């Protein structure tokens, strides 16, 4: 793993392999979860370089779809402790380096 040549290859592999969305924790219902996940993927792909816009887009869409007071955090590294309404939290990884936390609390 340490060698650079292999390291690059590994990295490429990693990028390729780790591009899928990986739900880390959620208590949402099946339907909602799928929808939210797809929305997150869409937003992160659309605003690949701007997490803020992506978060904004997710938040606004979620507010529209599931009622207000959604909160979204997107970033490569952060810690959090949130209070959320039950059945309204999704914490997922995406693209190998992004973490997305979406929750509802009004």
């Amino acid at each position, binding site marked *: 793993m340490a060698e650079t040549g292999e390291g690059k290859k590994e990295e490429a592999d990693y990028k390729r392999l780790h591009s899928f969305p990986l739900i880390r924790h959620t208590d949402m219902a099946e339907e909602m979860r799928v929808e939210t996940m797809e929305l997150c993927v869409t937003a992160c792909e659309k605003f690949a370089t701007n997490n803020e816009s992506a978060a904004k887009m997710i938040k606004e869409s979620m507010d529209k779809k599931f009622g207000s007071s959604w909160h979204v955090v997107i970033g490569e590294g952060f810690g959090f402790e949130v209070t959320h309404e039950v059945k309204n*939290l999704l914490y997922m990884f995406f693209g190998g*380096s992004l973490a997305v936390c979406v929750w509802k*609390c009004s």
Partner: protein
Amino acid sequence: MPVPTTVKSKKPPGAGLKVAKPASKKKDEEEGVDQGDGWDEWAQGKALIKPPDQLELTEEELKEEFTKILTANNPHAPQNIARYSFKERSYKPISSVDQMAVHFVLEGNLIHVDSEEARRQRARQDQTDEKPAAEAEAEPDEEIPENPVIEETSEIVDAAAAEDAEEAEVLGEEERPDSVEAQIGKKEQKVTNQFNFSERASQTLNNPLRERSCQTEPPPRCNFSATANQWVIYDAYLEELEKQEKNKDKQKTFSAKKEEDKLKKNKMVTETQSDDVTKVVKVVKIFERMVNQNTFDDIAQDFKYFEDASDEFREQEGTLLPLWKFQYDKAKRLSVTALCWNKSYQDLFAVGMGSYDFSKQGHGMLLLYTLKNSTCPEFVYPTSSGIMCLHIHDRLSHLVAVGFYDGCVAVFDLKAEEGGAAQPAFKSTAKAGKHTDPVWQVRWQNDDMDNNHNFYSISSDGRVVSWTLIKNELVFSDVIKLSLEGALPECLEVVEQPSVACGTSFDFHPKIDFLFLVGTEEGKIHKCSKAYSSQFLETYQAHNMAVDAVKWNQFHPKVFLSCSSDWTVKIWDHTIRTPMFTFDLNSAVGDVAWSPYSSTVFAAVTTDGKVHVFDLSINKYEAICQQPVVAKKKTKLTHIEFNPIHPIIVVGDDRGYVTCFKLSPNLRKKPKEKKGQEVPKGPEVEEAKMEKLLSLLREPDYNSV
């Protein structure tokens, strides 16, 4: 203030008041004109109406003028008042009469500012509110007392009077700088007449306020916390990928797994079903035993410690002490057809329930009792056919071989879980060589070359069959076929079918592996070898009726015992074709058993309900104990077994009861100890003891030969 002028005319007094005001304003000269106007106005509407009694006056008379003078004198006032004067001691007219007439008086509820009372009140007020006072001092001009009139309030006091007084001042008042008025007037309170002032107010009831609200429960919430950073994300992805890999592998072996899962699920179901019961089973069992121990405490004490003291005085005879009695309600109508002690657990024994009566065949039952719980069997296995015989494996004490009336043999596994325990672990089928007649005896043998467990069975169909437990089935092989003349050659089997002998019992030699004895229904005993299926080594013309049991002596290799329904028990040396001993018990003998502790002691049970115990070393001709042990007269005893360790026997009868007896000391007597001499012990001694007996009997034979 009193009215200074009075109008003297014919008008009514009310009108006077009305006129009074304008009159006071415009002075006396104009009064007449005013009055006239007033009359004219008033008379306009009724000018032509004249009272009937009015004087008719002529023009001249009408034009005549009368002069009337208005004075300030009160016409009603008395003019000739005389008062007594004490000074002059005479009545004197009073010159000055009060001319004032008061028409209307209204007490005011406010006090005039200039009055003494008002001043005092103000002073008091100033004291209480010093602040306003201080402010007032800041502007000395405003000093309140100097203002002669502060208000218009006084207007109310007495209209007419006030008007007069003020007439002159009105202008001045209005011209007065407003500053003082305005500034002070606001904070100046009206000065009240304390004797005639009441503030009127009424308070209505306030409607009570009512609050109505409703609170909904907020949607449930919970906390979640995590930390996201690159390595956590990386690890999560790696883990996920690994999982996916595994899933792929799984899918390859999917079909196989599925079946396994199903099996597992089934297992789970059965497990969970029995779970609720199994949880308490152990506890309940312990409790049951505790209760039994309490209830049958005296029996337990007897079993352990009681020795019949009277034996010492009886020399040779002994007795049996009844201990526990075992019965099971569900097996009430069945008779005991087999007994067997468990070699590993000395308190446990198996009881086979069935029926010997051809016309009363039905179901059977395998029961396992322990001495620790006499009220209820430890294991119960109901069977569809009556049990005829059983044997517990010497080493693997959980295996019980059973022979049925319908010719089947089966093996029960006590270890099997409760759920499947009702069924035997192994059972012979019609295809796999089952007997065609009742199985009279089964006996475990040593494992074969491949370490498979195996046992032998004998049946009325004349076959001795060896059964081997292979995987989950019983494999049979015929060891020998019995015939009347001798062992039947294979080829002749079909032809000589009627001559087949019925086997009723057998026993394997404890030391010589291949040697075994077979008792038959017609009373013969065959000595056979496993090696020869077609030939008997020996045939003894033993009894006149069916041989119910044959038993090798456990110490002496040559001696065996047989009993029969012809009332006799015989002891044999297998090398000699005639019996060594013959005992007639005056009733059909159901079963006989050697004692495990002495080579010369054996016991037999008879159908008249008696147990006979013999000790050949003590008495060669009679039983040393002959004791009826049944409650009812007609009860037949069917089987007897010695406990391998304890000095007790169990006896079964045809009513389904199993009774346990303790042998009294005389029945298990050891050779008398001689002083200074060690008593030899062990099987050799026992063998020698028997040998000594036999040698006495053999000698004449040898002589004769």
